């Protein structure tokens, strides 16, 4: 288990070692065009949120392999460490931003959870909040009133990416935006809540 500084250093190295970087404005424009097109197609902001999350899920399930292959990090020992790695290594190596992490402990368990899996500890219900002080997806975006009233989360794809990536490493999580500066809030916050650890799937014998 590395310290916070070591994670920062790993994230920085990974970002630097990626030689193919694209223009951030092109990236922001592409994403913006995508969201606008989805709004035109679905005409329902809740549905657009859902679609963005689904797209993000697809991205996340693939992105995790790249992340693991390049970072050579092993399993996180508990959910707290997951938050640290996601913020300092994950976000840094892909978006070159480092959100701050705030861990919120688990709600008091009603009955003693028995952890039979020795590898992981972390009570379902624990969560962490990522506070993004900058968001490359939303560089020059100003939401129109209808989008604000409709409840659009512009960067909802990020929630899907986190959900997909963590599911591939056996964690079922719920990821949602708490606030967004695009909506006039103070800060952009994403909360990741651990629902449960997924047990290893026993392969169904078909042959």
């Amino acid at each position, binding site marked *: 288990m590395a310290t916070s500084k070591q994670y920062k250093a790993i994230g920085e190295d990974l970002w630097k070692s990626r030689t193919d970087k694209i223009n951030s404005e092109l990236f922001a424009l592409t994403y913006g065009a995508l969201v606008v097109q989805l709004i035109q197609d679905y005409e329902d902001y809740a549905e657009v949120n859902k679609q963005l999350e689904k797209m993000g899920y697809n991205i996340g399930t*693939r992105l995790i392999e*790249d992340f693991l*292959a390049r970072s050579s990090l092993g*399993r996180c020992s508990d959910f707290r460490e997951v938050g640290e790695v996601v913020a300092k290594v994950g976000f840094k190596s892909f978006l070159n931003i480092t959100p701050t992490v705030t861990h919120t402990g688990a709600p008091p368990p009603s009955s003693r959870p028995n952890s039979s899996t020795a*590898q992981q500890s972390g009570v379902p219900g624990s969560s962490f909040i990522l506070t993004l002080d900058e968001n490359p997806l939303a560089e020059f975006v100003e939401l129109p009133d209808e989008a604000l009233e409709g409840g659009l989360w512009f960067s909802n794809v990020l929630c899907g990416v986190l959900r997909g990536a963590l599911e591939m*490493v056996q964690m079922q999580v719920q990821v949602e935006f708490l606030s967004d500066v695009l909506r006039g809030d103070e800060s952009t916050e994403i909360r990741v809540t651990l629902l449960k650890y997924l047990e290893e799937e026993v392969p169904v014998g078909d*042959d």
Partner: protein
Amino acid sequence: MAIFSLWVINKAGGLVYQRNFADGLAQLTSNEYLVLAGTLHGIHAITSRLSPAGSSSGAQVIEGESFKMTILLTATGTKFVLLTSLAEATADSVLQRVYEAYADAVMKNPFHTPEMPVRSEGFDTQITSLIGAGQP
């Protein structure tokens, strides 16, 4: 010192990629490869329970008289298996680079369905430059 073949096994135990790199290897049918991969997957899962020293990963190297099998298990459950001669020392680093090629050429292709057999020219090309020409 030689690399004989590479297998990639998905998290459910299905063989998604198989390629030989040397001549004179036993020619098995694709069905036989599937069965062997599934068996290896099961054995690998069992070996992690056999550890006398608490929790452990599954077997990483299995040696026989004339060959060695090195297994890289990723955190996502995918297994990369390299069969080499006993003297081959580079198996671990080769597997790590195969994993990177997999993350690039296979996972980043939006038209590739995860956990399904790999039919990717990009992956084949990268493996060829990494290990050498071979025949499937």
